[in-house]
């Protein structure tokens, strides 16, 4: 198991290989498709420092307000492929080092991971309680009023956040491999017939 601190240096990114299990510490920023669209269409400069070598998390948390503090009540990953139209550009523009999500992403993202040295971390879908317990602090929130709580950009401080590298910076994708392998089995099951 690898322990990594976010922001993640490009030197550390290239060491990661698909199949590695990682515990993440430090700052991660939630962003779903609406936030990605905003990052690309408006190119807000103030996000550049925040996202440089940073980690984006595909997540729309359930959040509670206790006094002046935000508490994350549930925070598992959302399906990553919805962010596919924007991700390659976001990695290039903001220098992001890591993306956390579920289900993997497509070829455009895979190429961008290779070209700009970044990595895709897979978190277990639906693991909202286990992952919420890894959030030690909510540092800030952006675009809360504009996007609403589930689609705002929450700046989270996490400890021992468990993920698996499923797409690395060397062009490997565990999702692609699994899709092809199971596709071959599907073809043989269909040819054989089963009823």
């Amino acid at each position, binding site marked *: 198991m690898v322990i990594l601190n976010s922001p993640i240096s490009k030197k550390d990114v290239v060491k990661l290989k698909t199949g590695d299990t990682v515990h993440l510490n430090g700052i991660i920023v939630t962003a779903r498709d609406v936030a990605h669209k905003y990052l690309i269409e408006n190119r807000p400069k103030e996000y550049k420092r925040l996202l440089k070598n940073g980690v984006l998390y595909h997540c729309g948390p359930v959040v509670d307000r206790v006094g002046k503090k935000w508490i994350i009540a549930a925070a598992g990953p959302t399906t990553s492929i919805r962010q596919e139209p924007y991700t390659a550009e976001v990695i290039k523009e903001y220098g992001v080092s890591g993306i956390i999500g579920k289900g993997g992403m497509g070829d455009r993202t895979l190429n961008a991971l290779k070209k700009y040295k970044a990595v895709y971390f897979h978190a277990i879908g639906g693991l909202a309680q286990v992952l919420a317990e890894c959030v030690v602090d909510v540092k800030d929130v952006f675009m809360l009023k504009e996007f609403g709580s589930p689609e705002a950009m929450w700046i989270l401080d996490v400890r021992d956040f468990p993920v698996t590298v499923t797409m690395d910076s060397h062009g490997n994708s565990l999702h692609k491999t699994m899709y092809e392998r*199971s596709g071959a089995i599907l073809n043989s099951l269909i040819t054989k*017939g089963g*009823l």
Partner: protein
Amino acid sequence: MNSKNLLNTFVELIRRTSSDLPVDVVSAIEKGLLTEKRDSIAHKTLQMILKNIDIAREKSLPMCQDTGTPVFYVNYPAKVSQIDIKKKINQAIKESVYKLYLRPNIVDTLTGKNLGDRTGPGYPVINFEEWKKDYIKVILMLKGGGCENVGTQYALPDSRVNAVRDLEGVRRCILDAVHKAQGRGCSPGILGVCIGGDRVSSYEESKRQLLRSLDDRNKNPVLGKLEQSIMRDANKLGIGPMGFGGRTTLLGVKIGSLCRIPPSYFVSVTYMCWAYRRRGFEYENEKVKRWLY
């Protein structure tokens, strides 16, 4: 009708559904764990999922942050007003957002604005059906977005999967749907399938199949055999929990059929993720008669 009691019952239904997975689903996940190799990624993933289920139950918080589209199935006697029930459900949703059982999960599609604790056209979904019994029965399913997105429909014949209008064709469609869902719908999943109907009724019936208990047996032996065959083959695909590889790709398959007109032959598949949140109650004389599942 004592409105306060019914309102509280609806809030309690939402709490249970969002935070406490039914026992048939938990047992199916535990059974899956036994088939995976120790220390494999599939084994670890299922262990984490079971841990998550326990925490959600203990804390009364959503097991998945996507609390989904609430889909209600309401059977009611003639004396009960649909309008009253609808009002209670909408109120209960508002209260449940406040209590964190539900995420503020509704967006105006045209403006993109989140409506917070309100409800609107399409959210929640309520299926009403009058019946002859003199009590109310309500089942709630919280249908997550990731798995809803991978639901699919085939119009046979379908050359993409080489399927003609027979059960072998149906089988090919369903296995293809499982293959295509990988990564996007959180596996191990559960399939609700309908053969026949029109486009809308077919999808609707496929979702309704998910109200069946995982351990029940299909009343129709032909469909029962098809269910078993799909289970066996889908779990040979090697997709496994979350698509990391493994033996547990599906926890269950439920297939129903509707009549059709000769030009159409639909196969509709609703995919449910492992967070198969469904609960229900029967309500009589102003109080809960029994909780379901």
